[in-house]
Each structure stands twice: as structure tokens, then as C-alpha cells.
């Protein structure tokens, strides 16, 4: 996993509530047995006029010009600004894979769906929960200013706008540590293998029927 520390990234606003993972990456792409290559299909139904299929070359597909990702001013954006309950629906990790593959590493929203939220951390994406009032302000500023960027600093847990105003966000120490160092969680957990084995033994003695 890529490490994340700081970013001064262009912001792309996606002004819809309840954006679900089917919208983020439609189901036909779930047929892949790979982890990469989903970026061009991010928000496929909103982004293209035709229906995307896995393996397709997206360079010449007809675009829906109005959709934010297709607007030249948001090209190369790394911060996705979103509304309430972002990432609801199916647990598919293809959603954060597609978002990451498209170049985003931070998502800011008033709230996220639980499974999506934890999937983000496992793929080097920092999901930031900000109050509805702050998110409103960011949407307004982003619309008003071309090339609007936000500076995100994970160490100090702060986000700064171009005017220098800032807000802080929460993150658990464990997630912060893993993200900042690009650590593989499985390796970390296996350091506790003996504790897992000891638990398993006790558990088996109490409920032998759980072990076949």
C-alpha cells in the first residue's frame, strides 16, 4: 500500500447525496479477478453515454460532458468532495480501487457508509468526515474558484483551504499509523499470532461445535 502523509490536491465536487457503490463502479466490472485498471470506469454510467464493459478501451467513448469528472477544470483532481452517506450499498472494494486508480487519495464528505469507509483505509485513501456546514462551504468555494485546491496534512489531521482557513478531522491512531507508513495490516496482525492461537484454544474448549 502507498503511504499517505500530505497532499495539496485539486478538488472535484460531486454534488449528490447517497452515492452508492453501484454508481461508483457498476457491477459488470466486478467480473474482473484483478485489483487494478478500474479507474477509467469510475462512475461509468454518469460519465459515458454508452455502457462500459470490462476490458473496453475508454479513450474514444462518448462522454456525458456535464458530468464533473469530464470537465477539463477538474482534470487531475486528487480530492473528491462529496455529500452525505457516500459509498453506501454493496461492499465491493472495487469502488475504492476505482477511485484510487482514477487518482483520488482523499474524499471529504459529511458522512460515509461504514464498509466503504473502512475499505478506503485499506487502499491508501483517506476518507475525511467534515461537518455539513464545512462541506457546504467547500462546495461553494470550489464552484467559485477554478483550480481550487485543498491542503491535507495527515500528521496534524488538518485540511486547509487556499485562504488559509483550516479544520481538523478524526482518525484512529491505528489507521493513521498504517496509512502514514503504508503498512500491510495482515503482517501487523500476524505479530499477534500467539494470542490468536490462545484465544482459539479457549474458544474451542467452550464451543467445540464451532470447529468441524
Amino acid at each position: 500500500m502507498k503511504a499517505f502523509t500530505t497532499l495539496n490536491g485539486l478538488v472535484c465536487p460531486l454534488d449528490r447525496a447517497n452515492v452508492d457503490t453501484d454508481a461508483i463502479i457498476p457491477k459488470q466490472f466486478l467480473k474482473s479477478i484483478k485489483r487494478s485498471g478500474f479507474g477509467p470506469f469510475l462512475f461509468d454510467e454518469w460519465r459515458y453515454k454508452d455502457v462500459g464493459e470490462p476490458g473496453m478501451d475508454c479513450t474514444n467513448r462518448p462522454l456525458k460532458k456535464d458530468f464533473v469528472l469530464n470537465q477539463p477544470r477538474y482534470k487531475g483532481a486528487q480530492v473528491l468532495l462529496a455529500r452525505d452517506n457516500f459509498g453506501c450499498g454493496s461492499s465491493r472494494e472495487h469502488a475504492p480501487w476505482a477511485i484510487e486508480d482514477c487518482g483520488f487519495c482523499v474524499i471529504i464528505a459529511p458522512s460515509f457508509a461504514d464498509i466503504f469507509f473502512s475499505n478506503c483505509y485499506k487502499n491508501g485513501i483517506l476518507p475525511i468526515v467534515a461537518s455539513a456546514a464545512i462541506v457546504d462551504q467547500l462546495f461553494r468555494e470550489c464552484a467559485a474558484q477554478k483550480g481550487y485546491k485543498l491542503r491535507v496534512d495527515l500528521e496534524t489531521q488538518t485540511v486547509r483551504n487556499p485562504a488559509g482557513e483550516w479544520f481538523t478531522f478524526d482518525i484512529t491512531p491505528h489507521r493513521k499509523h498504517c496509512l502514514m507508513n503504508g503498512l500491510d495490516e495482515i503482517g501487523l496482525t500476524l505479530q499477534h499470532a500467539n494470542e490468536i492461537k490462545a484465544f482459539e484454544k479457549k474458544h474451542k474448549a467452550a464451543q467445540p461445535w464451532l470447529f468441524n
Partner: protein
Amino acid sequence: MAGKTLYDKLWESHVVREESDGTCLIYIDRHLMHEVTSPQAFEGLRLAQRKAWRKDSIVANPDHNTPTNNWDGGIKDPISRLQVETLDANIKDFGALVYFPFKHANQGIIHVIGPENGTTLPGMTVVCGDSHTSTHGAFGALAHGIGTSEVEHVLATQTLIAKRSKRMLIKVDGKVGAGVTAKDIALAIIGKIGTAGGTGYAIEFGGAAIRALSMEGRMTLCNMAIEGGARAGLVAPDAKTVAYLKGRQYAPKGADWDKAVAYWKTLVSDRNAKFDTVIEMDAAKIEPQVTWGTSPEQVLSVGAKVPNPAKEKDAVKRGSIERALAYMGLKADTPINQIQIDKVFIGSCTNSRIEDLRAAAAVAKGKRKAANVKLVLVVPGSGQVKRQAEAEGLDKIFTAAGFEWREPGCSMCLAMNADRLAAGERCASTSNRNFEGRQGAGGRTHLVSPEMAAAAAIAGHFVDIRSF
């Protein structure tokens, strides 16, 4: 001292270790798998040269990509076929307690086969790379969906890194009226709390109306907990749970059975347990539900009219109503029971168990589908459900009504196989998600109970099952 909720008991009995910030390593008893969310996890294990920690915790089968007709023809789409064959190969390499490959007599939707084989038990932690894992909470198991990285983590370590959820109690007291099902209770709850209402919570469903539900009904309800934002739904085990499990293949036997049943009886919230949020509902007030929009919270009673965005003051909400109506091709203020449909889907892990099929068959018996309805798909949840339905003659009732009787699988719940809606087609569906494009690009989904779906198939439009 405050007592413990069922959730607390399940959680605490699985904590391997806890960090100072409350992050825990949770031991996982049952790992369910299907072909869509597992290939990258196995790939990760291989790359890191890791083994599966406990292969006897794994119950797997392909369900999303498998066709529901012409099984002899195999899986035509080469990409789908590769995904299914990849699961075959991964299970062969890493092992499993139960594996039903494509065309096996017991193959089915993973959330249907887990319980019916007795591999889902009260007191367990159950995970699957699938959000509808919440279904298994119907047994008093702590069950929730995980992402593919977590699938890999559970495979390699038998644990999950997690934090305790908040606890919500949804108490549905009283008695539901005739024609009102577990699906209607679930949709009414989501209509009340919203699709994010349960975010951060594990929801325990209690009250007389929940106790009165069969195990099938409880599975339908817990299945939809995720649509209310909660990763896990729970119903405390009781005599019905025990009766359902007795004699199932992987349920405990002999002395273990007695010991297990005694333990399961302790899996209830204590009388003085404290919940972070309590919501009370009156079952008698719940009517048959139909979704009208593109989110499960956009739901109304069958007698209502489609909402009018002009009456909504909040701009964000107004925008989402307008967008939903445009996508759904509906005019504001249209009475729900005048909405004509093109197709009907009876199936999915929400409503494809034997009780659901019986209910749909009772409505369809001796009738024919309406001329404007192009296709009515009835897709049993598993091979066992299919055999049982055929033994009861339900398949004959469906085919006589002009419905199609198919092989088990996820089918048109998410349209990864050939079963899907064409753009603009409108479907009465017993599944759980009405998102844009869920049942096929441009397809329009209305979520309903099996009874309501069958009645819509016969009438050609939505009808109130109570006066049908």
C-alpha cells in the same frame, strides 16, 4: 450496573485483543465466500506466500455470475466463467468446509445456503465479502459484510480489525395485519430511519412482531439492515431458531447440541441493557410497501402517491426526489397502484426461501400474468429450496401462471448474469436494492414483498395485496 445487549455479548466473546483506542482484533468463526469478492484476496495470499488460517471455517459457492437457465450450456460469458473457475481453483488450493461448485445439487445464494446447511449458528461471528451478510444476524450471530482486503485478512489471520458499533434497538410491537410481511416491516423501518439511519450501529430487532416472524422472515429483515446503513442486524435466538437448526447437516449433534442450546439461550439482551438508540414502531400501522425511487428509503405504502418535489423545502432532498422521478420515469402525485410494470423478479437473498415462494405461489395459483408483463422470473435461493418447492408443486403453479421457473442464483438481483432489465424497463422486484442500474443499465426497480410482486405480475400494475 447496566446489563449487556446481545451485541455486547457477541462482541465480547470474540475479542482476541484490544488496543488502547478501542480497536479490537475479533475472532471470526465462519467465513462465507462467493466468486466476486474473493479472487483478489486469494491472489494477495499467494503473493505473500500465506496459507488460510482455518479452512474449516470457510463455506463457499459461486452465485452472482451463474446462469439460471440452460445449465447444460455452461457459463457463456467468458469473463463470468473465468471468475467462477477461479473460485473453484482457489478452494481447491486453500480448502473449505463446504464448497458447492456450479451445478451442484445444493448450490445457491451464499446467504441462503449458509443457514440451510446449519453452518450459521447463534453466537458465531460470520463474515463474507458481501454486504448482505447481515442476513445471518437472524440467528443471533454477529454477521456483517467486509471488503476484499478484509477477506484476505480473515483468510490469513482468522480475525478482523474492528471497532465496537453503537447499539440500536428497533422494537416493533403489536401484530402486523394480513398481507404484511417481514419485507414490509424492513422497508417501513428504512423509510423511517433512512438509508444512513443505522450507520455506525448494530441493530437488534425486537418486540412481539419480530418474535412472531418465522426464521425466513427474520432473515429477510436482517438482510435489509444494511439498506438502513447498519452493517449488522440481530434477532435474539429463541425456540424457533433452535427448531430451525435441529438436524441440519452442520448443526451440533448429541451432547454438543444440548450444550449449544443451553448457551444459545443466554444470547439475549439483558432486561436492563442499555442501547444508544431505541426506536419503537407499531406493527399494526405498517402497510404493504412499494419503493418509488432509486434508494430503499424512497418507499411508501401501496395506497400512497408518488411524492411531489415541489412540496419539499430542503433543496438537497428536492434535488434527489427530482432526480429519482426522472430516472424512474414517474410523474409526481401518480398513485402507486397505477404504476404499470414490464417485468417481475421473485428471488434474491432477501426473498427466495421456501416461505417466500409459497407466498408468491398462493397469489399466482389459478391465475395468469397480465399481457403487458413481459417476463416473470422466479429464482429459488438454492438447490434445496428448489427441490422443496417442486415437491410441493409450486413450480407447476408458477409455470401455469406464465411465470418462468429457474435454477438458483443471484440472478436479476444485480444482473451480473444474463438476467437483466433493458433500459427503461420497470420491474417489481423482491430483492433489496433499487439503485440506478442495479438490475440492468437504465432499468427501473420497485422493491416489494413476494406476495406483492406476484400480485403485480397478475394485475400488470401494483395492487394492494389486501384487496387482491
